[in-house]
């Protein structure tokens, strides 16, 4: 009779897979609870509820304008710089409500670094770019700063390429190198989370693969949330994937599930290249 039963269930898709809540054993860097966000009258995020586990790569995918950038910018409170923005709901970073008046934005941003689509180094030397954050935090000791530069550039897989020209202007680097420099700049202040908004969309394929390799290395130490338009990239580098559509999370699951057997037809259509 055992086998009869097995066959009965065969016709239904088992719906016991993980939902938006990540399993208990892993700790979460972020817990997002019913987050809504409006630009004036236009709602850009609708009831977003999801947990983001630590030391994993979480990919945010979805068609243009679905709210990906808005979402990750909210995670380090960059959206509130837009005057017309209103939010409701809760975002917890390591159990601290980031919208709480008592919670310091500065502290949040030292813990949560951000890398943008276009590399944006400062018009300074490679060295000065990296030590910019630590200097702001009052580190003056040359030896300490040197160590930070070496460690950060090594972690960003850029050290070997630039160690002999640290005093040169950062604009002399290639696009891919500039992007890794921006990552090194984030790492210099020893963050906990790295937010990346389409970090490779302005890069050539080899630089893109270097960043992807780097992300795999970085996730051993950091939690990474990456927005990408490149489906193969999401598949290659992320552990979890959230599919956004019109400001909502349609599906959030292990990346392998999202790309092999998504539960929602809209996810299926999007990841298999039928719209977007």
């Amino acid at each position, binding site marked *: 009779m055992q086998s009869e039963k*097995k*066959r009965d269930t065969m*016709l239904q898709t088992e719906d016991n897979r993980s939902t938006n809540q990540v399993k208990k054993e892993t700790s979460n860097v972020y817990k997002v609870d019913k987050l809504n966000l409006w630009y004036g009258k236009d709602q850009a995020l609708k009831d977003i509820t999801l947990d983001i586990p630590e030391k994993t790569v979480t990919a945010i995918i979805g068609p243009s304008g679905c709210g990906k950038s808005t979402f990750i910018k909210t995670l380090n409170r960059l959206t509130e710089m837009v005057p017309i923005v209103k939010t409701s709901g809760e975002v917890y970073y390591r159990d601290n409500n980031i919208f709480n008046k008592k919670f310091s934005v500065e502290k949040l941003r030292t813990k949560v670094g951000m890398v943008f689509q276009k590399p944006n180094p400062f018009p300074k030397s490679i060295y000065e770019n990296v030590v910019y954050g630590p200097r702001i935090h009052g580190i003056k000791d040359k030896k300490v700063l040197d160590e930070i530069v070496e460690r950060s550039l090594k972690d960003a897989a850029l050290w070997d390429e630039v160690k002999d020209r640290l005093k040169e202007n950062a604009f002399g680097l290639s696009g891919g190198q500039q992007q890794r420099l921006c990552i090194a700049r984030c790492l210099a202040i020893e963050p906990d989370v790295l937010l990346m908004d389409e970090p490779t969309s302005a890069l050539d394929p080899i630089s893109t693969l270097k960043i992807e390799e780097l992300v795999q290395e970085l996730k051993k130490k950091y939690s990474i949330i990456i927005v990408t338009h490149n489906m193969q990239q999401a*598949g290659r580098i992320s552990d979890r994937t959230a599919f956004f559509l019109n400001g909502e999370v349609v599906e959030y699951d292990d990346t392998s599930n999202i790309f*092999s*057997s998504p539960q929602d037809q809209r996810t299926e259509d999007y*990841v298999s290249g039928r719209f977007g």
Partner: protein
Amino acid sequence: MNVRSTYEQELASLQDEVFNLGKEVIQTFERAMELLDKGKGHLLQDIIDYDKVINKKELEIHDKATLMIAKQQPVATDLRTTIVALKISSDLERVGDLSIDIIKASRRMTAFQPEHKIEEMREMASIAVSMLDRALSAYKHKDLMTAQQIAVLDDKVDAKYKMFVRGLFAMSIEQNEIENIAQLAFIGRYIERIADYATNLAEWIVYEQNGQHFDLN
């Protein structure tokens, strides 16, 4: 506008090729059984030769699917459909090989033709053919109900095979025909394997549709 219509056409034609391969394999199996019936295994050289064509077709499906994966990087259902075409064609190719094994075993048999044993094999084979037919139809029409029925038929073949082997044991004690009885046992075993492959096909069809693996065996 459907932005992937070229790919969808390629997928559909891949599935057609798998389906046609299946039809040819079933014919091979049926002819193998038919000639065993009449004790004319030696006449089957053309089928044995045709098996090379079947193998070649299976490789063509393999190459085509591989190229599609490389060029289109399918995911989700597209990917499963492509992988399942690969899996099903390779299972079908194995059914073709087993049919050839049946012919070869029947050639090794001498005049010894115990009618009731042949009849039992004929029954097993006809269920196995029906399983293959249904599997192909379920594959074509993405029909999970039919896929499910195949498992029930496989249980029947297994039961019949058990009886068949038991009967052969009894015979081997009574008669001095060890060599022929061994060949009969082989053939029964090949048919039973073919039914297993038909069940595999059903499992792949389920996987293609909902991404889950079920052991129907």
